[in-house]
């Protein structure tokens, strides 16, 4: 064969010769025996033949557990602000009587100029003292009116700081400030933030829903 020229035809015939020579070759029988043993071992080790189903069931259970844990973990966060507001509403219960009287004593004046000043300025000191998380919750959950002055207020009153106190008032107090009231809910109370100056007097109020 070596004396022949290796052209395309010779190559094809040589490859066929090689293929024919190897056509009878087979893997040794020991491999079949090993595979059988592996299969038996596998059957003993793994009682569930459908591994995929088991995998997905386990994955589903894990996902459900993860969701449950995350729900439980997130719940206290959402409840905290309610507890703090409850605490706040409980605390000023004593003050409530005192502050309820404030609107009676201090009649709002029709002058517009001081009203603007008070409505902008007094919020700042209150905001500084309230923790950020609470502020965020208030912002996201509550709708509040602008602060309405309870009588004439000198802006210098708040130079020494002030305090916003959350109180609950009878719903009829809305009418006193010229706000509409739902008569069907007259027996319910309404939340309000009262701005108390350094002199200890209530200077402005806003209603919160």
């Amino acid at each position, binding site marked *: *064969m*070596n*004396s*022949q*020229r*290796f*052209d*395309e035809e010779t*190559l*094809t015939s*040589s*490859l*066929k*010769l*090689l*293929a024919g*020579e*190897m*056509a009878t*070759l*087979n*893997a*040794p029988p020991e*491999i*079949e025996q*090993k*595979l*059988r043993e*592996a*299969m*038996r071992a*596998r*059957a003993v080790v793994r009682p569930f*033949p459908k591994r*995929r189903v088991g995998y997905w069931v386990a994955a589903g259970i894990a996902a459900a557990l993860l969701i449950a844990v995350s729900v439980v973990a997130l719940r206290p966060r959402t409840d905290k602000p309610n507890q703090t507001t409850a605490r706040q509403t409980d605390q000023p219960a004593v003050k409530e009587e005192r502050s309820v009287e404030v609107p009676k004593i201090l009649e709002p004046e029709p002058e517009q100029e001081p009203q603007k000043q008070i409505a902008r300025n007094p919020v700042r000191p209150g905001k500084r003292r309230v923790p950020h998380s609470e502020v965020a919750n208030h912002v996201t959950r509550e709708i509040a009116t602008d602060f309405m002055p309870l009588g004439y207020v000198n802006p210098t009153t708040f130079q020494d700081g002030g305090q916003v106190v959350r109180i609950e008032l009878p719903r009829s107090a809305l009418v006193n400030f010229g706000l509409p009231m739902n008569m069907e809910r007259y027996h319910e109370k309404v939340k309000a933030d009262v701005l108390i100056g350094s002199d200890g007097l209530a200077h402005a109020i806003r209603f919160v829903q």
Partner: protein
Amino acid sequence: MSVNHLGAMNLQSEPGDSELLRSMLAGDEEALALLYRRRQGSVYRFALQMSGSKPMAEDVTQEVFLFLMREGHVFDPARGSLSAFLLGVARNHVLRRMRVDQFMTPIGDDDDDEAVFVATGTDLRPLDDLARAETIELVRRAVLSLPPKYREVVVLCELQDVSYGEAAEILGCAIGTVRSRLHRARALLLAKLRPAEQIDDESSASLKSARCFA
């Protein structure tokens, strides 16, 4: 599927590869044996022709069927035959092994690797048999010396007699790529085999001249 059921099927008709695979995955040992006996030859030969090493071919054959036992559910009959699937798995194993083995140096002579082919000298023409065995060995070495991407095409299309379409499926490429690679591989084989011929011619010529002078 139980053994009896397979036996009954054998009486009627040979069960298909997919059917055997399903039974095997369900834990039927006889289905595994049937499938193995049916498909081991092509897997073993492919691995042997690709690697030129009997131990590697045996290992690869075993690994392919172990993979089938483990991950047989990934086989999709709509995408091709089980034979092509097994050859594809075998190819991946062979290439992986060859990548690892290229950094290793063989220690000592491995007679088994060299004795892949047994000359069939049953007739009364020993010189013809010798020439034939020599040619086979020459071509085998030339095929083994090809780069893997050309070697696998030659092994599949020329030695395993796999169609171009099936080869493309096994190799994960287009039929056109298979054709062009095969063309290039044949050209490389011719280039590898011709110099040997020329060298032989030259040596025989020098021998003749030496005889003349003698």
